């Protein structure tokens, strides 16, 4: 049984590999974005020692790692699901002897591994040539960061699966998916670390799953978290991984009954 899912990861990985040229320009685009925020933050700090718990050099590292991590966890699984639901392919998927959501998760993982190896890692090295990044010095931090990154992938993919399953009920959720993308970028801390928001906004954002996607791993990597805080951050991520399964599971059960095949 697990070998079947492993195969899903492999196939998706190979599929991505066939189109790898598309990703070279992606690295440049992400570098351009990192550059834009680098100069902006540099001007914003201009002499101030620390803001929102980050020093200027930690901020540079935070921006770079957040974007390159996004290259890893980002995927269009929700869009793919919406398409499969709309044209009716999902009906075939449902009678196949596997769990549709698990398959989607595995495909996302295959894509993620590809992007990690061919986008995030080389991208991070290239960006390090241009901007003054400080990589974590202790192997422990690297270890914690890897765990945190893996969890952020799970959380983001769960959110994508939820948006995808919503297509069963909304039939057309193009707008929702676009809005979700922007909301995730803003509230996950990619554009702005959560610690910069005013107090009332922070207290709301701490109760949302988005901070677990980018902010928590980013802070770990930038070295802006003490050891006990790292434990807390990972715990928050773990809780969200589990909590998000619940609406996903319930919606999936409902969706199986509510299925309307629109295409022929």
């Amino acid at each position, binding site marked *: 049984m697990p070998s079947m899912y492993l195969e899903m990861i492999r196939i998706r990985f190979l599929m991505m590999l066939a189109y790898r040229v598309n990703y070279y320009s992606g690295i440049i685009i992400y570098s351009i974005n990192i550059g*834009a925020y680098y100069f902006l933050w540099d001007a914003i700090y201009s002499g101030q020692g620390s803001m929102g718990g980050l020093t200027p050099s930690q901020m540079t590292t935070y921006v770079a790692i957040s974007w390159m991590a996004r290259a890893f966890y980002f995927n269009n699984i929700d869009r793919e699901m919406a398409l499969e639901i709309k044209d009716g392919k999902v009906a075939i998927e449902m009678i196949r002897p596997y769990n549709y959501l698990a398959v989607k998760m595995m495909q996302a993982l295959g894509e993620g591994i590809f992007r990690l190896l061919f986008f995030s890692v080389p991208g991070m090295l290239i960006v390090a040539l241009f901007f003054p990044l400080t990589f974590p010095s202790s192997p422990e931090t690297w270890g914690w960061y890897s765990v945190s990154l893996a969890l952020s992938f799970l959380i983001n993919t769960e959110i994508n699966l939820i948006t995808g399953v919503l297509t069963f009920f909304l039939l*057309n959720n193009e707008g929702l998916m676009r809005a979700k993308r*922007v909301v995730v970028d803003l509230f996950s801390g990619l554009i702005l670390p959560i610690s910069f928001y005013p107090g009332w906004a922070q207290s709301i954002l701490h109760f949302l799953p988005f901070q677990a996607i980018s902010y928590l791993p980013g802070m770990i990597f930038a070295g802006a978290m003490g050891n006990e805080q790292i434990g807390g951050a990972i715990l928050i991520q773990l809780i969200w991984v589990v909590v998000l399964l619940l609406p996903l599971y319930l919606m999936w059960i409902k969706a199986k009954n509510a299925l309307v095949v629109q295409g022929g």
Partner: protein
Amino acid sequence: MFYGELFFDYLKQYLKTKLAYRLDLLNELISDFISQIVNLVFILVVFQHTNFIKGWSQQEIIFIYGFFLIPFAVFSTFFNFWEFQEKYIIKGEMDRILTRPAHHLFQVVLETMDPESLAGVFTGLIIMGYAGYQLDLEIAWYDPFVFVLLVLSGVFLYGGVYIAIASLGFFIDAKTGISPMIYNIQSYGRYPVDIYNKVIRFVLTWILPFAFVGVYPSAYFLGREDLFVYVWITPVMGIVFFVIGVWLWNLGVKNYRGAGS
């Protein structure tokens, strides 16, 4: 006159297709609006921690952002060349265009038109108006004319740059991926160029002159006299880049052999 009629005919057809899917239209407008607001949120939050960024106040930066949205919205309405190569060159739609008795560039502009992007003009005006009100800017009787001139210059400048990039499609068969790169560099123009290093400042002023769509024209209304030189060459830049773009396009069409089947 022929071109005017053509424009309205295309517009009518476009609106018909759009109104058939009203919910999609609404979705699109809302998600565009959300992404415009995200940048505003960024500026607002950052200024909770500092009063000035390289000598520019919060209101001034918001004003620049609001101004930028207006030419950008007009540009997005008429110059949707993102999929030009894919759709017109690789799939061969360009052959169809060339057999028709209207200028090819004009036809492509009409076919890819996206009028709902114009909603950005209102968002921009509101943001800019709000910042201008906070700054207590004085408005002379001729300022609205200067405003329209500067906005149009920005639109032509953007248009020229993207026409030039689309023209590359006539010479290169494979997908280049250049336009998303340029598109991302565009966001550099939303902030005062003072924050960048010399090289980037030079690029944003003379090579990919996106600063002429944000900071430089805004400097006029903000009374930044040190930048007035750039304000006055904004229209010149707009015309020069548009002419270069169209020239490259015409050259490309001459060179076009057809790749579709």
